[in-house]
């Protein structure tokens, strides 16, 4: 028992230490953000006269309202369509089990490990030729395509576990495939769908590479891409950069804290599904 207790204390200590290391960068950002704009504070040092106004200044400089709007529009473009297409395909492959499904599934699975850098060059020229460069579509459309492997994989894993009897009894009642899908299967897939939605939201909101390559105007980018531009513009003013970074972090952080349980579950499942 004594051993057990000591072990528990070591565990607690370790946990607290780990949390401290995790939070340290945020604390450092916060403290630095309170120093006078344009100064070059050293280390972690509470300012004599905290400049809360820096957050207001950064809020205006980063045009936060516009940024949130832009990221939201992109998320609204990407997530619902990805969910719909992924669910349709996952249903067909996992439940309807049409001929050739194994090949199609394999083709999707091959895309799972694809690093976005691998296709970013042709994507640029393709998007340019479509005349979509510097519009939000330049981020939305490719992302839907790039998310397909994961969405299909995820939804197939759900549908493959749905018992056939379910469909069978619906058939008896004269439902066609379309009705079967919408009335029976989609409602049952809600837990899987909501986890997928959370993951796609997060990846879209934080997407960086596509944003910086395909869209020059920070106000039409994702949050992450806008932060990149903000660094380019204000990188010479450390406190302001820190304040801006915190503001840009804030929306995801707030949403995460509100839905933390769902997030953690989704992220764990997201990696474990593999």
């Amino acid at each position, binding site marked *: 028992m004594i051993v057990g207790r000591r072990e528990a204390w070591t565990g607690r200590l370790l946990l607290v230490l780990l949390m401290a290391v995790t939070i340290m960068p945020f604390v450092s950002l916060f403290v630095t953000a309170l120093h006078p704009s344009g100064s*070059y504070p050293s280390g972690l040092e509470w300012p004599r006269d905290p400049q809360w106004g820096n957050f207001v200044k950064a809020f205006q400089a980063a045009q936060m309202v516009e940024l949130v709007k832009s990221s939201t529009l992109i998320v609204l473009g990407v997530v619902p369509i990805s969910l719909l297409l992924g669910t349709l395909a996952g249903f067909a492959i996992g439940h309807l089990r049409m001929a050739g499904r194994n*090949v199609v599934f394999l*083709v999707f699975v091959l895309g799972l490990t694809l690093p976005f850098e691998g296709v970013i060059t042709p994507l640029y020229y393709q998007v340019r030729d479509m005349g979509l460069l*510097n519009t939000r579509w330049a981020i939305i459309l490719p992302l839907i395509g790039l998310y397909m492997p994961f969405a299909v994989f995820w939804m197939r894993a759900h549908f493959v576990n749905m018992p056939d009897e379910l469909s069978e009894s619906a058939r008896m009642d004269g439902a066609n495939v379309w009705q079967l899908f919408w009335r029976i299967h989609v409602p049952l897939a809600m837990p899987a769908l909501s986890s997928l939605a959370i993951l796609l939201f997060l990846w879209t909101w934080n997407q960086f590479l596509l944003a910086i390559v395909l869209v020059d105007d920070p106000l039409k980018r994702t949050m992450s891409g806008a932060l990149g531009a903000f660094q*380019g513009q204000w*990188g*010479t003013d450390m406190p302001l950069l820190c304040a801006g970074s915190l503001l840009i972090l804030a929306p995801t952080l707030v949403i995460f804290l509100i839905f933390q349980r769902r997030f953690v579950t989704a992220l764990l499942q997201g990696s474990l599904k593999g």
Partner: protein
Amino acid sequence: MSRRTRWNRAAFAVVMGGALATGCGAPGGDAPQPEATGASLSAAPTCGTEPVTLNAYIETGFPLPKELSTEFSKQYPNVKWNIREDQFAVITQNAPRVLADDPPDLMRLPQVSELVKNNLLKNLDGYAKAFGWDSWPASQLEQMRMAPGGKTRGEGSLYAMGLNFSMTGVFYNKKLAEKIGMSSPPATLAELDDAMAKAKSAGITPIAQFNGGATGGLAFPLQDLMAAYGPPGPINDWIYQKPGATIDTPANLQATRHLEKWIKAGYFWKDVNAVDYATMMSRFIKGDGLFMFNGDWESGNLDKQMPGEVGFFLMPPAQQGGKQAAMSAPLTFGISSRAKNADCAAFFLNWVATDPKAREIGVKVGGSHPMGPADAPMPEVAEDTVTASTLAAGAKIAEDNGAMDFIANATGAIYAKSWTPQLQKLVAGQQTPEELLKSVQSDYVSQVKGS
């Protein structure tokens, strides 16, 4: 079974068909056609009276273009601005892509040769004639001229304009100079070395310089040393991509060895490889560092932040009384060949050089000599300011015919991909002066050939 295989094969065909329906031709080929904007205009263009939004792409951290645009909108209220900012290295890298695919009306440009080759920049000859830029001192526009096809710089048609004409040299902290008994600026390289040695033993960092990230600031002292050891002509030939030009010359090797000597003697900050431009400025202003190799675009800023405490001198020659040279270049702005409001942008550029208020902003905020006719009125500058001494130094360079472009502007990629990593390696002791020049030269050759 056979049915199954057929289906599989069909599925495969659908998928691969989609993937391969890419049009099997070689990529590229639709280069923008050169526009004959060189054709003469019937009258000097203006911004008109309709609302216009000028798209500008400028460099972060320098207030001049913004102040000018604000003043311009005050005088011409129908003109609004949409300004995008990035750091210089980013702009250098983005230039061709942005000009081709998202053409701004006005863009800060590092150097023009590759851009002209690809017909990305508007030929400004027509505007030059209409506005009378041809009658300005020729040296002001020389660096922005390109022979047909973008082969050689320095002659031919005009492809960009300057907001002003900046120049580099050495700033020094007068208080620290007093401490080590330096009463007047060094007249020779040996005197400069001597002052540095004294500073070092007095516990003062001799040189405030940046060399971090994608911009190797040691290129400033290096090129100054090159100019001290040799004439500026061959360096300019190299930058202008004249056939057969090389950076790997005996004089430049001496210069690079000299720089290495400074590094080994610990004249730079220990973390110079992690210091970016803004950090260097903030440290120098705080009083850390005796000398700083930099340009007159900081004169106005230094006069404001450390009034009366900063001096400026041109890089001293190796021999007493030798000719002096300095990097001197227009703050270059170009107009995309696909710009929507080219006329208005050109009108703005002309306004910057000729409007009295704009010229005043150019000197007060920009700290550099304005462009424009030789007899245009000069804004008044107080005697004991850095701005006054940098303007005076400009006259000396003109007299010695010592203007050089920046070695970082030789090709689009040479700064970020060659000078910067090489100089960072030199600092870390991982590169020798001999190999540094060889390596930059070989990158240069492949870049000039490849593009």
